[in-house]
Structure formats: structure tokens, C-alpha cells
């Protein structure tokens, strides 16, 4: 039970607990907060694995931009408690079992599978090597994503602007 394992379990517990609370919270903003906690915990796990750049990006983009957008929108629409309608009988009865089934399948598959153990997780992925990979091997996907973002921006603007202006 060395330190890193302890940290892992703590973070994992935090993440799972936050995810559960995301489900249980009635108010979207609480769900959002829980999700932020999950993300921070995941960032911690990334650090634990030595993927520090990913961790930082995780917090900056997810925590600092995406989730802020969520919170912002929740505030903008002044969303209240969610009402528990059950119009879809299917979702009401079959939904959660199905989700559990999928998760169970994946988990079972993982436990069955034999992976090489993580090689020295403390070895940091140097940002340089990452950027080399990103800008040499994956340069076309990278450019494509930039284009995707451009499109997304346009779409968001078109969607969000009120009719008339």
C-alpha cells in the first residue's frame, strides 16, 4: 500500500462519489459542480500517471472553459430543479439496467483481459515529445480539429443570436 496507490484510491473515490452525486443532485448547477470535481480528480489521476500536460489541459479547457460555459448557460437560462417526468416508459424501466449491463460488460472484459502493467507511471511525458507527436504525426488531424472549432464557433454564433439582428 504505497503512497501512489493510496493517492489513486483517494482520487478514484472522489471521482466516483462526485459522479454519483452528479446523478443524484436535483439541480443542474450542483451536477455541474460535481462534474467539475470529477474532472479535477481525473486531472489528479493524470498527474499521478505522469501525464502532466494532459492534466493541465484537462483543467484549463474542461474546468476553465467548458464547464464555465455550462454554469454560464445554467445561470443564463436560470434553470431550476429538474422535474421527474416519466413519459418514456422504456427509459423508466429498461434504462438503468441497460447502462449497468454495458458497464458490466466492459468491466468484465477488462478484468478478463491481460494488459502490460503501466510502465513506470512516474515517468513524465515531456511536453516537447507530446508536441512533436502532435505537430508531426498528427498534424492533419490537428488542422482538421482547428477547422472543426471554426465551424463550431460559427454554428454557436448562428444558433445563439436572436432572430432580427
Amino acid at each position, binding site marked *: 500500500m504505497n503512497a501512489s496507490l493510496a493517492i489513486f484510491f483517494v482520487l478514484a473515490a472522489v471521482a466516483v462519489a462526485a*459522479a454519483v452525486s452528479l446523478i443524484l443532485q436535483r439541480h443542474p448547477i450542483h451536477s455541474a459542480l460535481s462534474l467539475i470535481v470529477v474532472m479535477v480528480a481525473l486531472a489528479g489521476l493524470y498527474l499521478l500517471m505522469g501525464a502532466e500536460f494532459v492534466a493541465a489541459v484537462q483543467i484549463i479547457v474542461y474546468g476553465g472553459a467548458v464547464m464555465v460555459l455550462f454554469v454560464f448557460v445554467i445561470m443564463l437560462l436560470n434553470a431550476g430543479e429538474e422535474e421527474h417526468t416519466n413519459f418514456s416508459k422504456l427509459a423508466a424501466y429498461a434504462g438503468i439496467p441497460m447502462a449497468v449491463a454495458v458497464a458490466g460488460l466492459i468491466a468484465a472484459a477488462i478484468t478478463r483481459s491481460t494488459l502490460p502493467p503501466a510502465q513506470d507511471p512516474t515517468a513524465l511525458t515531456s511536453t516537447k515529445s507530446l508536441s512533436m507527436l502532435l505537430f508531426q504525426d498528427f498534424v492533419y488531424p490537428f488542422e482538421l480539429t482547428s477547422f472543426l472549432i471554426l465551424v463550431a464557433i460559427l454554428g454557436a454564433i448562428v444558433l445563439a443570436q436572436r432572430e432580427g439582428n
Partner: protein
Amino acid sequence: MIPTNYYLILSAILFGLGMIAFVFKRNIITIFMAIELMLNAVNLAFVAFSKAFGKSDGEVFVLFVIVVAAAEAAVGLGIIILTARNRRSLNVERVDLLKL
């Protein structure tokens, strides 16, 4: 020294929770968050794998996933705003006309 499977199991659990949230919650925004949660779970798996195999490709993929998620959030929230304006409700079960 943490076995990769731990990470994968954790990611599976988070993914499952995300799916449960997806089918269980009624609020569009929360459902959106559920999707983000699932994406995060996948990211965790990616990083775990990239560490397990000692290649950084997984992390690059994570970056891509994050970017795509950001774009998706921008558009999706735009749609949500529009829907909420027109339907006066954020409950997905009340937004079932297959049109704005």
C-alpha cells in the same frame, strides 16, 4: 506502481455512471454533462493505455477528444439555449417534437 486495470476499471465505472446519468436525468444540460462525463472516462482510459504501452499517442488523442468536446459544448449549448427559448422548458421529455 498501479496496475493499468485499476484505471480501466475506474474509467468503466465512470462511463457507466455517465450512461446512467444519461438515461436517468431529464434536464438537457445535465444530460449534456453526462456525455462530458463519459468523454472524461474515455480520456482516462486513453491515458492509461498510452502509459501502459509507453506511447504518447493516447495522450494526443485525449487532447483531440478535449478539443472536440469543447466544440461540441459550444454548439450544443447554443442549441440548448435556443430550445429553452422556444419550448420554455429544459426537460427533454417535453422537447419531443423533433423540431425547434
